[in-house]
């Protein structure tokens, strides 16, 4: 990893710059603590509505003019509301960094949030929600979240939100959320690629230096989520060929010191279709699925820790049994030493390979900065991965992935037998 140049602007915005020689482009990530975790209770979808409307005109220019200015640079950009943060992500030519950050700042700090634009975003979001209702991946995700997280919890619904909330959100509610949540304190700006620390800092100061600091309410405290028993839900999605299956558990915050062991455990179990145990058996040995993978989100809450599979309805029951059986083996220590060594090697090796792209570098730095993992994180992290023991993997699986208490969601065609 090239050196990370860190600084903090007077308003509290943290800046991390990673210059990469020989590149013409620069990746930019501005993460503001305005994701699902910070949404008003019981109002899933507000964060995304705000994020999308911020891209539709500013107090200075209308949506079409702002979009043309962005395209004039040849830049690509988007603004997504994730589990933790709302992230403006972009790529531009290195010389255009100042102009890109100026456009970004305009959208983030002074969006018009005009009534007509709110209605446009509402219409687009409802269209996507309608499409999602017949998408087996989206349906299984929605169903799984409803099984695990109680109503009112920020992860009860996917980031796109609940259709009733999207329909009922008022312009005042959207403007109030922007006023409350979109602020520089807690925010992080990452710049990686064809730039210099000086040029990036100047561009950041010019665009965001006078962004007023605000005291943000930090009332996002939610009781722990636990699964007392196994929960299952099957949702019929008509005229589909394949079932989407999610088996999962509530995870743990990225700041938890056990997260490194979680990453290794995840890799041993199912993170990779080819290198992990679940995929090896389900796809390679039994031919039951084209893809099997697991993942855990990085947030300050209990993001989903889930295994996903695409399976023919005839094979759903068996694939689930095999996935759980592989997990049981891990919880009783039936893990080859080489499986753990492989998982660690892969996670460490991926850190090097990610350096091939400015976006890969920016993503790694964002996680480190967002969750205060320390200035020496990139030196420590490979060592910490290497230090994870078999006992820790077993303990992590027992604690967070109990095979007798899980949430299962299946979406797709009718199944030949009931899931028990």
């Amino acid at each position: 990893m090239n050196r990370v140049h860190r600084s903090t602007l007077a308003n509290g915005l943290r800046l991390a710059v990673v210059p990469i020689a020989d590149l013409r482009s620069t990746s930019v990530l501005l993460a503001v603590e305005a994701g699902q975790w910070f949404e008003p209770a019981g109002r899933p979808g507000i964060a995304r509505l705000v994020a999308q409307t911020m891209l539709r005109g500013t107090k200075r220019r209308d949506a079409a003019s702002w979009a043309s200015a962005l395209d004039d640079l040849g830049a690509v950009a988007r603004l997504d509301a994730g589990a933790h943060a709302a992230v403006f992500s972009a790529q531009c030519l290195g010389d255009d960094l100042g102009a890109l950050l100026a456009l970004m700042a305009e959208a983030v700090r002074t969006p018009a949030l005009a009534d007509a634009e709110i209605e446009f975003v509402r219409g687009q979001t409802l269209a996507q929600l309608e499409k999602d209702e017949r998408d087996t991946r989206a349906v299984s995700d929605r169903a799984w979240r409803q099984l695990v997280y109680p109503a009112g919890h920020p992860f009860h619904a996917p980031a796109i939100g609940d259709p009733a909330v999207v329909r009922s959100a008022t312009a005042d509610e959207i403007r109030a959320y922007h006023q409350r949540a979109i602020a520089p304190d807690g925010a992080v700006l990452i710049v990686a690629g064809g730039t210099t620390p000086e040029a990036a800092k100047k561009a950041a100061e010019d665009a965001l230096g006078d962004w007023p600091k605000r005291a943000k309410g930090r009332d996002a405290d939610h009781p722990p989520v636990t699964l007392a028993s196994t929960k299952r839900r099957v949702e019929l999605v008509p005229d589909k060929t394949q079932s989407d299956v999610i088996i999962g558990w509530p995870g743990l915050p990225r700041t938890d010191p056990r997260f490194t062991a979680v990453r290794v455990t995840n890799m041993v179990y199912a993170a990779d279709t080819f290198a992990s145990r679940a995929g090896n058996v389900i796809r390679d040995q039994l031919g039951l699925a084209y893809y099997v993978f697991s993942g855990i989100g990085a947030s300050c809450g209990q993001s989903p820790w889930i295994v996903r599979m695409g399976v023919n309805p005839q094979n759903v029951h068996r694939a689930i049994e095999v996935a759980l059986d592989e997990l049981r083996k891990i919880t009783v220590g039936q893990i080859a030493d080489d499986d753990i060594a492989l998982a660690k090697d892969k996670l460490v090796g991926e850190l090097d390979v990610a350096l091939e792209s400015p976006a890969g570098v920016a993503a790694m730095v964002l996680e480190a900065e967002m969750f205060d993992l320390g200035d020496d994180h990139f030196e420590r992290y490979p060592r910490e991965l290497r230090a994870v023991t078999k006992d820790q993997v077993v303990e992590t699986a027992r604690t967070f992935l109990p095979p007798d208490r899980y949430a299962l969601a299946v979406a797709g065609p009718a199944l030949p037998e009931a899931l028990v």
Partner: protein
Amino acid sequence: MLYALEARHAPVVSLWVWYHVGGRNEVPGTTGMSHFLEHMLFKGTQKHPKGDLDRLLARYGAQWNAFTSEDVTCYFETVPKAHYKTALELESDRMRNALISLEETEAERTVIVSEREGYENDPSFLLGEELQAIAFSRHTYGQGVIGSKDEIKLMTRDGLYAHYRRFYAPNNAYVVVTGDDEPERLIEEAAAAFGPLDPSTDLGEPPKAPEPEQHGERRVTVHRAGGTLPIVMLAFRAPRATDPRAAAISALTVALAGTSTGSDGASGRSSRLHRALVETGLAADVDASFQLMKDPYLFFVDATLRPGIKHADVERVLLEELAKLSQDLLAEAEFARVRRQLLAATAFNTDTITWRSYRCGQLLSTGAANSISEWYAKLAAVTREEIRDAAAGLFVERSRNVGHFVPEGDAS
């Protein structure tokens, strides 16, 4: 053929092996064979039994995969540079020594069926497959790549093995490598790995099934239950990658739909189709695509409709927009924007070592250009007149294929 590029910004090497075999080399009844074979190349050789390659590459943290298209089958791995030799050893070994056992063929068959079933869940795939099929009456491009479920079930081990021995050989492959070393050294090591391999003796001539001129619009409608959003998809006959118009058509794609996809992205919103369809509330999403192909293929335009909007209304607006580009020059400012987007996108893609290697291999294997810089120069030289003329040549009614996806009531 071996080709190397230097990229010093990260300690990795990206190795790509391109075989000149894909859907175009297949005949009805065995459609999907090249794709099936791609899966079998991960099932082991004498030297590296099944699982060896997966675990070795995983151990390096490699980014690796493979894909099959109508024209080519491609394998790649991006590895820390210390492991470049191992990547070469794995690729050269499976170029001629894959086992393709009967047992593994049977085990993989259900995986490929599962892959196909996953695609079938997506209305865009279903419509695109049907549209591709009606757009070609002779050329094998009409068959697609993955094959039907029945064909996948009928594929034999011996057929796969014969296909393998015929097409997987150094005299039918491009090796493109990009990474943190001098190109001469990268090539030298690749030559040492692939040079000793025996060539195929029965490659034969490339498939020749020229597609006759189309003399009238063709239409297809796909009905599925479930209430997802309707889609309109248009496919026009488009020239091959070596055609002098290919760069102008790439620019035309940007004028129509920008360089990024997805309706929730911020970029591409100044494009013609976004303004005419998304901003007006007719469509939730629009796209246009032109692929560099060995033979004349298709230029696709598609729109996912907003709820309650009629196919005919969206199709009409799409055709109006295409007609405008066929008749009028882009305004100077719009042309400058399109050109900037096109050239910037090239820089974005090629700043990632894996995609720099891919782009180079794609240009070489299709004959579009001899290098990324040559292709960049072609894009940079495109004029407004060439874009208009390219549109006029493409968007004609008699070579138009139109597909509608019609969601129907809940079948449950």
